[in-house]
């Protein structure tokens, strides 16, 4: 089964064509089809013949410009590099070819930012950048690699400027950060995600990345957990008041509360959200979050709370949610059954 193989959100509007328009399109497309199928046949024939020449390489360039999703041709292109263009040349030449390759795929990427095969090819190029220009004992032994990796980080950022939710670009970014020859301090990712979040609170991808970064920094003891958690609550508070209907913010809040989970924190956050709820009594996410945190209180601290009144509060919140958000009423009902 294949899925996620098609660009998401391509949004091509349906057009109803008349017979004449259809015929005109058919004629228009005929020459393109002819060009494409001839080019395909020629390239695949060369592939079968194990032709690793520059000529064959140029054919793959033309074909991929027409169809960047033709994965077999990307594979063939790499075979030509490995068995042809890279053979008997100095490593500087290999580096130059790969840098050209990254340039060529950049234009493909701009036109098709969600094609898996283009991203894969970039990774492959990056991983094949040779050591140099210096020798192993020299400082600039990883110079080529480092500059290629830094450039790719900029590429990922550029792609995220164009579409801040592109999960390919986020994945590529994580990959670059994890495998750079000279790693960047992880804390710089906090500044990056903050910038992304402040540009748009709805950017859950950035919130997600931030949660992973913080978890890692806390784990390594590079950041004071208690203090930075409070900073995060501050950031969230702004976002919540800006748009209380934005689920990204509430999901991140749920993560943040979960990193501590103490009774004090739960009660404090319930009170803080209650303030917002008092201003906006029909805010689904306020109700949902308070219900969730009260359920957590009940579950985690059964001997320290008034079970009966807390259960009653939860049930009342859930029944309010049932009328407010009827699409999910069965979920609220199910939660109500387990709230005691």
């Amino acid at each position, binding site marked *: 089964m294949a*899925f996620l193989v*098609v660009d998401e959100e391509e949004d091509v509007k349906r057009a109803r064509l008349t017979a004449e328009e259809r015929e005109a399109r058919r004629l228009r497309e005929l020459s393109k089809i002819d060009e494409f199928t001839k080019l395909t046949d020629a390239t695949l024939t060369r592939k079968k013949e194990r032709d690793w020449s520059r000529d064959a390489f140029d054919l793959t360039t033309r074909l991929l410009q027409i169809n960047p*999703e033709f994965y077999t041709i990307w594979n063939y292109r790499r075979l030509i590099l490995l068995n042809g263009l890279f053979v008997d040349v100095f490593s500087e030449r290999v580096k130059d070819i790969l840098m050209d390759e990254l340039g060529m795929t950049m234009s493909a990427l701009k036109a098709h930012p969600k094609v898996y095969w283009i991203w894969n090819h970039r990774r492959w190029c990056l991983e094949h950048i040779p050591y140099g220009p210096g020798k192993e004992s020299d400082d600039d032994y990883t110079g080529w690699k480092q500059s290629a990796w830094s450039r790719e980080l900029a590429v990922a950022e550029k792609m995220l400027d164009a579409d801040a939710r592109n999960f390919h670009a986020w994945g590529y970014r994580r990959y670059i950060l994890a495998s750079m020859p000279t790693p960047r301090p992880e804390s710089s990712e906090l500044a990056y995600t903050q910038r992304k979040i402040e540009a748009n609170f709805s950017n859950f991808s950035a919130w997600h990345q931030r949660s992973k970064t913080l978890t890692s920094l806390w784990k390594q003891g590079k950041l004071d957990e208690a203090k930075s958690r409070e900073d995060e609550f501050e950031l969230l508070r702004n976002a919540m008041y800006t748009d209380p209907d934005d689920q990204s913010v509430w999901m991140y809040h749920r993560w943040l509360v979960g990193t501590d989970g103490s009774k004090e924190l739960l009660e404090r956050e319930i009170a803080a959200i209650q303030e917002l709820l008092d201003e906006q009594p029909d805010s689904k996410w306020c109700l949902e979050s308070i219900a969730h945190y009260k359920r957590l209180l009940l579950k985690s601290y059964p001997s320290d709370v008034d079970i009966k009144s807390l259960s009653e509060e939860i049930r009342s919140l859930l029944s309010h949610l049932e009328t407010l958000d009827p699409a999910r009423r069965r979920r609220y009902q199910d939660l109500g059954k387990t709230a005691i």
Partner: protein
Amino acid sequence: MTPTTTTKSKSDPSTDTLLTDLHIKYIQDLGNSKDDLTYHLTAHLRLNAIYWGYNATCLLGRQDALNREEMIEFVMSCWDEEAGGFGAHPDHDAHLLSTTSAIQILVMQDALDRLDIDRVTKCTPSPPLSCISIAHTDTPLPFGLTVIVSLQQPSGVFAGDQWGETDTRFLYCAVNALSLLGRLDEINREKAVEYIERCRNYDGGFGSSVGAESHSGQVFVCVAALAILDRLDVVDVETLGWWLSERQLPNGGLNGRPEKLEDVCYSFWVLSALSILNKVPWIDADKLTSFILSAQDPEGGGIADRPGDMVDVFHTNFGIAGLSILGYPGLVDLDPVYCMPAGVIEARGLRKGWKALERRQS
């Protein structure tokens, strides 16, 4: 989005019901659109497209709508001898995505015996692909199997082919295909589960790799793989059920991630996961049904990503699959774990404990 073009309104009476005959005709005609540039530009998806189209016809109760022999012949012509798997089209390279589609089609056509005819005893990927070692077993594995098994990485995830891209999608493909062939024990199941577990996020969802954001498509592959591996205990059902139910938007459609647009294909990815977790009632089935139906093309057949857009066989299959889970009248039951007709999976003794909505009579 271009708001100027005509968009079918939701109340369009012609899309109130499932246009079965039109969809069948649309799927049948797909193979005859060789004058269409798109047909040629999608050759790299051909085998997948045949699976989507065939699965849709089966769900519509018209499994004979497409020619059986032609289909099987085409599948077999996609075999890539050098790599030991199926490509998406003759002369295209083998990949796990197309290999899984091939096996699914052969299982649905009850034609797995064709694999044995071509049983290979030794399939070694050609250089420089030989960096992936072949799993050694005493009994030679059937056709293609050796390669699938060899794609498992030390971390437990699978690569899509010998070039090494890894993704939880490929893990699912491998688990799906091997279980259909009854050879799931050839892989390291514990490692596979361990990898999925590492991809789990605090929102209960799963991403494409460790550290990646939760995405409905990846949630489906991870949950379905865990179902096949009998390890649904790894799922935080309440949290994931919450996340999945929040994918439904006011217009009834489902999105793939928070604060994103709806798309018909998520009707399957979100719904299948809900169904495996027995939580389909956590969303509004009627509103989703209307949304899927409104994305039909009432003139040419087929279903689009959203109302008014160009249809394609991918969204047609996943739209109908979603409707089947929602109990839409007249449709054949779908197995949400395999995205194949439930009867086919039951016959192989592979049915898991999922629950769809009861099939309505009218």
